[in-house]
């Protein structure tokens, strides 16, 4: 399926570079230069479904902007025939003129459950938390690594597809093949561990793990959300006398993380609980 991604940033150079990366990966790209344009573009998709109570408020904002900046209100940049094209993902900057990214995300969430990835120069934890609470699915800080961005875009699209967001109007998750096939399959997000086949797949692609790595991951995935100390992991997985247990376990954990995480420094699945141990996070 050909996905359409809406990119929204007030810096044209960044829009250009994003477009280059995304089109190289085969995505359709549309641009918006401020939050309001992005909101309009999303709401243009299904005007009959919006039931949007804030339309008047929106009009007021437009007028405000028009009077403040003394320019004509920009006509929606999208002619009516493209207005029907669904958007599958939004990449939103936060600090933008007219309507900032956070407010834009709140407005988009009123009518649509399209995945939103924030891309912002604000790198503090509080900004991250705010972004994720205000309807963001992911948060990437500038300057960003293009490979990480693409991987996160891919992951977000996959989650969206699996949860059935692609069919407008249907609330039921689509049937999918990766439904746990047997009791010995454990899944979190896109990471699946099948204990019958002794196989780990990430996004349907097999991950090559050593025997020790597999055993550690199996221990953590069969007890998701539970924190294991390095000693507990060592005692379960290894069968040799302990020597510098925390360090040994930590090395293996890092190797696993490098294999299953998009960005091993900011793991999604296998989290390090500093000074305590390790756990696998349960994701939908």
């Amino acid at each position, binding site marked *: 399926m050909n996905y359409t991604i809406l990119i929204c940033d007030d810096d044209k150079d960044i829009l250009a*570079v994003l477009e280059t990366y995304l089109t190289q990966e085969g995505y359709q790209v549309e641009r918006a230069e401020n939050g309001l344009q992005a909101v309009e573009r999303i709401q243009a998709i299904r005007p009959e479904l919006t039931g949007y109570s804030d339309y008047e408020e929106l009009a007021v904002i437009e007028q405000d902007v028009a009077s403040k900046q003394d320019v004509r209100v920009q006509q929606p940049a999208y002619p009516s025939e493209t207005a029907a094209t669904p958007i599958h993902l939004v990449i939103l900057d936060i600090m933008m003129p007219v309507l900032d990214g956070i407010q834009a995300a709140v407005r988009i969430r009123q009518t649509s459950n399209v995945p939103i990835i924030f891309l912002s*120069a*604000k*790198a503090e934890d509080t900004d991250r938390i705010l972004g994720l609470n205000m309807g963001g699915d992911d948060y990437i800080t*500038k300057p960003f690594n293009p490979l990480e961005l693409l991987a996160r875009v891919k992951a977000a699209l996959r989650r969206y597809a699996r949860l059935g967001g692609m069919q407008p109007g249907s609330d039921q998750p689509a049937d999918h093949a990766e439904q746990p096939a047997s009791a010995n399959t454990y899944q979190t997000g896109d990471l699946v561990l099948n204990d019958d086949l002794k196989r780990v797949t990430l996004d349907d692609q097999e991950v090559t793990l050593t025997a020790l790595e597999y055993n550690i991951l199996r221990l953590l995935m069969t007890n998701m959300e539970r924190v294991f100390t390095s000693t507990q992991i060592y005692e379960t997985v290894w069968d040799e006398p302990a020597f510098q247990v*925390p360090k040994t376990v930590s090395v293996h954990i890092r190797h696993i993380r490098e294999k299953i995480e998009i960005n091993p420094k900011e793991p999604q699945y296998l989290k390090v609980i*500093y*000074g305590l*141990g390790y756990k696998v996070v349960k994701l939908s």
Partner: protein
Amino acid sequence: MSKLLSSRFIQSRITTIVSLVVGYLASVSVVQQISWGFYQYVQNHFWLPYGWLPLSLLLLMAAILVFAASIRAADAATSQRLQTVDTPTLAIITLSFVLLSFSIDRQGGLSFYWSPVLMLFTMVTYLAFMLTFAALVLQLRDRHLRTSAYVIQYLRVFPMNSLPGALMAAVVIGNLALLLIFNPGLSNRVDQSIMLQLLSAITVLAMSLFCSHTLSLEEQYERAHVDKIQAERFKTELITNVSHDIRTPLTSIINYIGLIKALSIEDATLNEYVEVLDNKSNRLKVLIDDLMEASKASTGNISVNLEEIDLTEIVGQIAGEFDERLEERSLTLVLNQPEHHIVVHADSRHLWRVLENLFGNIVKYALPGTRVFAEITLHDSSLLSSSTAALCPVLILRNTSETPLELSGDALTDQFIQGDRSRQTEGSGLGLYIAKSLMDMMEGSLTVRTYGDLFEVVLAFNRWRA
């Protein structure tokens, strides 16, 4: 009443001094008259149990109760503290004290020919005294210790074991002793008591002058401190905003360099130039992040959640994290830790950052092919700093520096410092400074020591579970 409390009259130093002197004078006379009056009372009016005294005592008790209750209530509703609760309480306390002094004077005053003057004195003084006292209590509760609690200030600036402190204490105690010995109230040797009162008044005056001097010093310090905090906050905000503004163009630079690198360019020179651009722009990114973190950490603009952390575990974790980078530089890490686990109270993310910075330094600056020592042990912290705490857990990291260390340990933890001053490597020079600031915030300490080429960092944790 609260308006009165905040007025210049009450806050002025002259009021404080005068009220102290007069209050002291009056309280001396009260002491006399309590004993004298009580004696008279028991002697002559034993059959009259109801007078002013029980009534005012009762009022005083009630006032104390109301006051305690009001403090509780005020704590519950922290938003509106001063105005609502304290005015009636103050009124009651003041009134009851005036009544009390009046009653005492009335009982004993009969034998003093100058007692109406004294009575007036006592009333006015108690009023002023109570207001000052109330201001003190309120400000104590609001933790403005520095500007109000002059008694505490006095003790802090002139502690009992210093010479001026000891002198003052001797004078005061001597005076009190003289009072008790020579003037038990049973005699009415007025001439002697006047002498004594003059003596005490001089004492009190001297004390007040000391206090006011201390206060003015403290005020200056406070003002400078506030200015400094504001300047620091401004600096942090400036750095945060600027770094946001720099990040956006930097994003374009880094990404366009990435795009250029993705083109297949034959020209070797051009490739070399692009490589330089790539390195430098990434260095700039690290620099901005570190700068922001350093400014936040040094101004305390960062939250700290102390939790229980297994020191052995977290050191093992960081060692595993840096395992390969250490191997690349042929460094051997020797972990030296006790059998039992040591649990410290620290913020796990901040501690992780500290360890990341320290191990990052080791990877960058240690002489390849040498051993790096990490030792966890219990240590006498008084050897590290002037603090008096006995044993505390420490983590000691030792490595051999690749380049000669030209700076002392203390200078190395300053901002923008790198040991060889050359700034050739990828660091920002802020790593140790950030680590030290974070350790300070977690009530620990970071000490750097150098012995020739041996570089040693000692992390001490003052809060831990024994």
